């Protein structure tokens, strides 16, 4: 299992379209991936789960992954968040 903490930096935070991008990306990997804030831990492949996090700009989220492609999956998700979901 590997984990990484990262700050949401795009202006709108983890809003609907950003969340959809994240969930679709997570869905491409075989590993079990979770994304969590201080209060809530959600399955990164679940759109309702990720939206429930309601993670705004500057929120620190923790990504955890376990499975055959855990390293790749975390890299890809961290990349997406670092690149502000292709927004801004």
């Amino acid at each position, binding site marked *: *299992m590997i984990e990484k903490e990262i700050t949401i930096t795009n202006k709108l935070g983890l809003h609907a379209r950003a969340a959809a991008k994240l969930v679709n990306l*997570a*869905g491409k990997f075989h590993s*079990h*991936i*979770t994304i*969590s804030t201080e*209060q*809530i*831990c*959600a*399955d990164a*492949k*679940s*759109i*309702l*789960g990720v*939206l*429930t996090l*309601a993670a705004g700009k500057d929120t620190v989220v923790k990504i*955890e*992954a*376990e499975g055959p492609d855990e390293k790749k999956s975390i890299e890809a998700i961290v990349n997406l968040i670092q690149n502000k979901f292709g927004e801004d």
Partner: protein
Amino acid sequence: MPDSQEKVTYPLITVKEFLTHISKAELTLITGENGLNRKINRPRVQKLGLILAGFPEFIHKERVHLVGNTEICYLNKLSSEEKIKSLKPIFDLQISCLIVTKGLTPPEEMVTLAKESDTPLLSSPLRTTFVIQYISEGLQDILAPFVHKHGVLVDVFGVGVLMKGGSSIGKSETALDLIVRKHRLVSDDIIEIRKKGEILIGKAPDIAMGRMELRGLGIINISELFGIVALRDEKIIDLIVNLQPAQDFEDVDRLGIDEKFEEIMGVKIPSISLPVASGRNIANLLEIAASNLLLKRKGKYSAQEFVIKQRDRLKHRK
């Protein structure tokens, strides 16, 4: 695996919140308003009893503390110095608050010590038994620890079924099938589970309530599509069903005589694993699983009865 990690949240409340939330106990503040931001994190009420006689071993400062008729009568028999000697160590501990029940008048020394140590001193006109009952009930609700779990919770024939399983195994689709058959959805995808005593209660996080995601259709609103009867605010979790791709199964349970359990926050819940494969109608199977649990609760174990019958027959063959 991230799934097995439990991120349990233990809520706590301030004495100020406690005063407004537990209205049934009819509490009023006598003194110590500067301490209203002290924390309460345990639902049990501590009656001071022997602590007053100099036995403070079991005191937990984050509990609610209480004195009733016995304690007040005991204190009233003591001299002023003895009262202070008995009470001061308790207030020095910075206990969350102290309640005097039955509308009794607290000794002067108690009021002074409460004021000096900024400990909220509260009064209730009700008898100790009721005060303890109302506070414990209320605090068990408010202080119930909770976790968030990935899964779908549905009320099937009154049985709270928590479906788990990897993404896109068909949990939401199964829940939809069940809703069409007049069962009720509690939460899709993410469930907030509270532990109250030895039971687990699941509900949807506010933002996700009544919503469901179906691949290709997006997020839908269940109560608008199916009416309010298709939803349930919260439900006790009675059964965990793990949906797994059939090819992942090494040995499927073919008898059903072994009871399996899964633990959530230390509470054991009966669990089964269902292989998902084409031709298996999962909603149908969940209805049967729920009915079977109801039968078991009535003491009817179909699988075991059959095994016993078969064993008897084997004996007669000899």
